[in-house]
């Protein structure tokens, strides 16, 4: 910042000297001629400049300023802005195409995920690429513009799924359904507190943001696509 907006050009003094001599950077300067007189020029230093004693002396020290902070002020500002734009675009590219770190909320996946936690989503599996039955996926809710959910894939295109496994408990008939092409059937692990495909039907694979790889809040935990893990003997 100090270098970016100061009118000083040329090499900066070393880092230790910056602290001592920083007022020099903001030395008041007269930009405009007053009363037709010439602008005041800084008085030449009285100390004698060290003269090169011989042609074989060591080369002058290299300009240590970074390349994006060299030159006049307008070039410094534009250069820094361009670097910021490139950096933000690179971050956006990574979070949309490669990997995304995000927060998860809600009780719908309770035995698997806590009510609030942090997860890592692989965006390489977006649009349903390489998604299998049993994977945890993050996707957009089809009937809402800005809600995303985190559920488990129950059926892929062509599979037959039970629409509501809890229907028999309520005394209703269970219904089976074939997942249409290009869609997947999803459900939360905590069925009684989950809004999933039972309410809005099969989700198009184009809405899938990616596969949930791991949870890192409260200890690292990697999710495999096998949901049929055996319970512990004590449980």
């Amino acid at each position, binding site marked *: 910042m100090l270098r970016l907006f100061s009118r000083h050009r040329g090499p900066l003094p070393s880092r230790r000297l910056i602290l001592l001599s920083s007022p020099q950077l903001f030395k008041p300067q007269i930009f405009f001629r007053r009363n037709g007189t010439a602008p005041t020029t800084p008085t030449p230093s009285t100390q004698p400049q060290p003269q090169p004693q011989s042609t074989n002396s060591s080369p002058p020290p290299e300009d240590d300023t970074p390349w994006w902070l060299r030159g006049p002020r307008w070039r410094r500002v534009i250069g820094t802005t361009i670097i910021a734009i490139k950096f933000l675009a690179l971050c956006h590219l990574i979070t949309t195409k490669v990997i995304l770190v995000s927060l998860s909320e809600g009780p719908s996946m309770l035995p698997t995920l806590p009510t609030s936690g942090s997860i890592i989503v692989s965006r390489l599996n977006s649009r349903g690429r390489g998604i299998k039955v049993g994977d945890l996926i993050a996707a957009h809710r*089809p009937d809402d513009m800005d809600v995303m959910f985190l559920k488990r894939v129950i059926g892929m295109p062509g599979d037959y799924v039970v629409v509501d496994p809890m229907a028999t408990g309520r005394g209703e008939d269970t219904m089976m359904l074939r997942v249409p092409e290009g869609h997947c059937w999803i459900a939360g692990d905590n069925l009684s507190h989950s809004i999933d495909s039972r309410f809005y039907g099969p989700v198009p694979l184009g809405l899938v943001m990616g596969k949930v790889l791991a949870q890192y809040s409260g200890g690292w935990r990697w999710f495999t696509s096998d949901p049929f893990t055996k319970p512990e003997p004590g449980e």
Partner: protein
Amino acid sequence: MSVPAPTPPPSRWAFLRRGMHLPASVKLSLGVLSWLPVAIFFFDNVYHISWVSGRSMYPTFLPDSNAGMRDLILLKKWNAKNNLKRGEVVVYRSPVDPEVTAIKRVVGLEGDVVLTKKPFPVSEVVVPRNHVWVEGDDIHSHDSNHFGAISMHLIQARVTHIVWPFSRLGTVEKSLPASTQKRVIPAERQLVSIFST
């Protein structure tokens, strides 16, 4: 005999500030490559151009006057899903195959009643929340009459202009054909009919 002044220890980040000493060709290619994420962001989120293929939008795109030439269109991706109107041409990810994109015209927005065409099992359908009903201008088009209303999230872009061929350079018409307009009862007009009776 002159004693050289003690030089300060080199900074840990000096190599970053000085810049690496690389061949000019490598430096040039790195400079070009560093713009790649910016270009990808622009084409993914702001504007894109694309060729049209397929006959589903027949009188609007790829008419007979093209003589086999394909159309180049300008896609507006910024704010594509907000304030959609009936009659606008959109590009969406096919709900049948997520790797395929298709181009159709928006016929019904959420809450509209649409009288469906032949392959659809029900004759009259209410477009669900955050969904749109899309249809092609041609009779033989694979559209919502086959797979139902599509989610708004599948919409990728709006088609605003035709870029090529030059003879048809200009904006894309944003109105429904008269025969299609008769088959849609907009949500706002349904409210009016309730209060007037």
